[in-house]
């Protein structure tokens, strides 16, 4: 069976054979860049469509059903509309920051793609501090949001940006601790190592209850980090109209929109990697036959399946729950999630030291 890893290896081999080293690297970089941007665009379209359909079914309606078969081209039509719209810059806005902010957000989202393992051996850059890199870069997007809120010269935007700042800074903590609790088990920050350590079972099963708790906390924390409902205070449309992107229109708005969905994809991919084994098929201990059957399902399918399942869960949250208030949001983090995740980390350390996870 031809796997993605074989294809990439073949291309790599061919490039280095025909071109000098630096040119091959350059060509590869260009290919990766184009692939990443394409992935972004496709992800945006698919996820927005998915969100609209999920919300529609939960709200007992049909959702988009006009453009294309079953409405699948609706988001494409919307993107075209946004692309043709005038990108307004309000008077009194800090023009430079205002125009820069959406790109900061989208680039921050793009950077995190680097260490994600999409399939077996299919990874842009398997750097040795992969998961640390993800936590570090993912908090960069808040700078873009703050820039957008400040530069818009709009009080709603400013309030939204401030909320977003407070929110991301506090939820980074429990997200980080949840990540650490898996890193304790694997002993490596490298994504490929983390995936490989789940060869004989995913961490969510192997890690007993502490892994489950840290998984739940991680999902909650990343929902908050990506400003999704019920933690969408930064854009809370019933309070702040549209929060930090109130003044944005046209393509710049589309970039924020896209970044939101790409961020969801990324955090779900990370969660899938950490807890659900990434591209690793469902393996149970030493059941060789069962594991072998599972291996027939391509690894990329495993990865996408798990990621989309988590994305669906996060969408499910959004279409079920009311929004929290800003002080309740911070209470939830500092009074509930952080203490629980710290105790959980201790338990996890105990499990790791005693080696109970195998």
């Amino acid at each position, binding site marked *: 069976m031809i796997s993605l890893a074989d294809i990439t290896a073949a291309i790599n081999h061919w490039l280095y054979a025909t071109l000098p080293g630096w040119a091959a690297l350059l060509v590869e970089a260009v290919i990766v860049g184009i692939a990443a941007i394409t992935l972004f665009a496709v992800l945006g379209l698919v996820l927005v469509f998915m969100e609209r359909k999920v919300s529609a079914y939960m*709200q007992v309606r049909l959702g988009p059903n006009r453009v294309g078969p079953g409405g699948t081209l609706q988001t494409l039509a919307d993107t075209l509309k946004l692309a043709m719209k005038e990108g307004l810059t309000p008077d009194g806005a800090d023009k430079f920051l205002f125009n820069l902010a959406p790109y900061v957000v989208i680039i921050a989202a793009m950077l995190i793609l680097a260490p994600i393992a999409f399939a077996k051996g299919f990874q842009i850059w398997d750097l040795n501090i992969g998961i640390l890199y993800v936590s570090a870069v993912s908090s960069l997007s808040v700078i873009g949001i703050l820039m957008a809120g400040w530069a818009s010269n709009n009080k709603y935007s400013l309030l939204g940006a401030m909320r977003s700042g407070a929110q991301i800074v506090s939820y980074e903590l429990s997200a980080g601790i949840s990540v650490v609790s898996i890193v304790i088990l694997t002993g490596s920050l490298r994504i490929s190592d983390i995936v490989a350590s789940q060869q004989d079972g995913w961490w969510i099963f192997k890690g007993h209850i502490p892994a489950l708790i840290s998984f739940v906390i991680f999902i909650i924390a990343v929902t908050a980090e990506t400003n999704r409902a019920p933690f969408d205070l930064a854009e809370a449309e019933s309070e702040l109209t549209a929060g930090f992107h109130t003044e944005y229109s046209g393509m710049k708005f589309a970039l924020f929109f896209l970044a939101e969905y790409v961020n969801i994809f990324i955090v779900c991919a990370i969660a899938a990697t950490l807890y659900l084994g990434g591209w690793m098929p469902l393996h149970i201990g030493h059941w060789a036959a069962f594991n072998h059957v599972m291996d027939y399902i391509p690894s990329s399918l495993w990865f996408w399946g798990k990621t989309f399942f988590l994305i669906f869960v996060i969408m499910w949250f959004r279409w079920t729950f*009311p929004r929290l208030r*800003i002080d309740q949001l911070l209470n939830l983090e500092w009074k509930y999630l952080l203490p629980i995740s710290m105790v959980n980390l201790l338990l996890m350390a105990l499990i790791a030291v005693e080696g109970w996870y195998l």
Partner: protein
Amino acid sequence: MIEEIGTTEAGELVINMGPQHPSTHGVLHLIITISGETIKKVEPHLGYIHRSIEKMCESLSYRQFIYVTSRMDYLSSHINNHGCALCVEKGMQIEVPPRAQVIRVLMDELTRLASHQLWWGAMAMDVGALTPFFHAFREREAINDIMEETCGARLTMNYMVPGGVMADLHPRFAERVKEFMRFFRSKMDEYDELVTNNVIFKSRMQGVGYLSRENAISYGCTGPTGRASGVSCDMRKIAPYEVYGRLAFNEILQTEGDCYARYLVRMAEMRQSLSIIDQLIDNIPEGDFQAKTKAVLKLPKGEFYSRVETARGEFGVYIISEGGTTPYRIKFRSPGFSNLSALDHMARGHKIGDLVAIMGTLDLVIPDIDR
């Protein structure tokens, strides 16, 4: 605008919430002074949809002016019309046939249900849950369909005429109402599952927007807003009109006075409305649906006041007649106007998100406030 507000202390920010804002449900304009996220002051600016209905009515005959009142509180348009019809009947001393009385009450309660359903969805949307809105509209549409079949319109029915109702009930009315009741009863539990017991929703509502009993009376808060603070103010109980006097239903009272109490009062009122409809739907007396009235109505010289209970509270119609075919002066006492006046008092010291929740539970309808 901001300069006129004048002094703001250091660190305070003045925000215009509305007239175009997702959670003001129309064109309410609030000027809020905040310090950080905490509200220091809320100042409503009204009049964006002021049509001076009172002035318009001065040039309309007693048959004509009723339809305009549908456009005030459009969610309980039928009850508004009812108040006006009652006032004219009081002046003309028209005896309304029993069948018409029952039809009116049935329609009132259906309207109240529809209004509360919309409120439930809209309020859940204000606190950030979008799905309940569609679920609420599903049930509301069922009521609207029933209304449409009998009254001929979905929202501004104009079904009341002085002396009765405009047309008899549709033959399928009772059957369809019963079908709806079965459907809605099963959905009420879903409402509780989805919103009432939800921990996020509860924490958003409990202890927010407290209004004491004294203040509720002083601010003239009626309807669910007043009753959540423990003020007994249900016009159907205090001054029963039509057949309300002989119906068995409870006035829902809560004493907490916060947003959650207001929420619970409305939810319980929906169940009371269902029980009222239950009592009446099989007992619609036969007979005329309209009393015989003259083609041109002339109210005797004098003053007439009628009070009815809309979905938002006490609605009063005050007609001063000089004996002509048009009122000399007409005044509508709208519940939303008084309820809104307590907003500043309730919102101070809370967060912006709470202001939205408080407005949601006040169930403001802006044309009702502006008139």
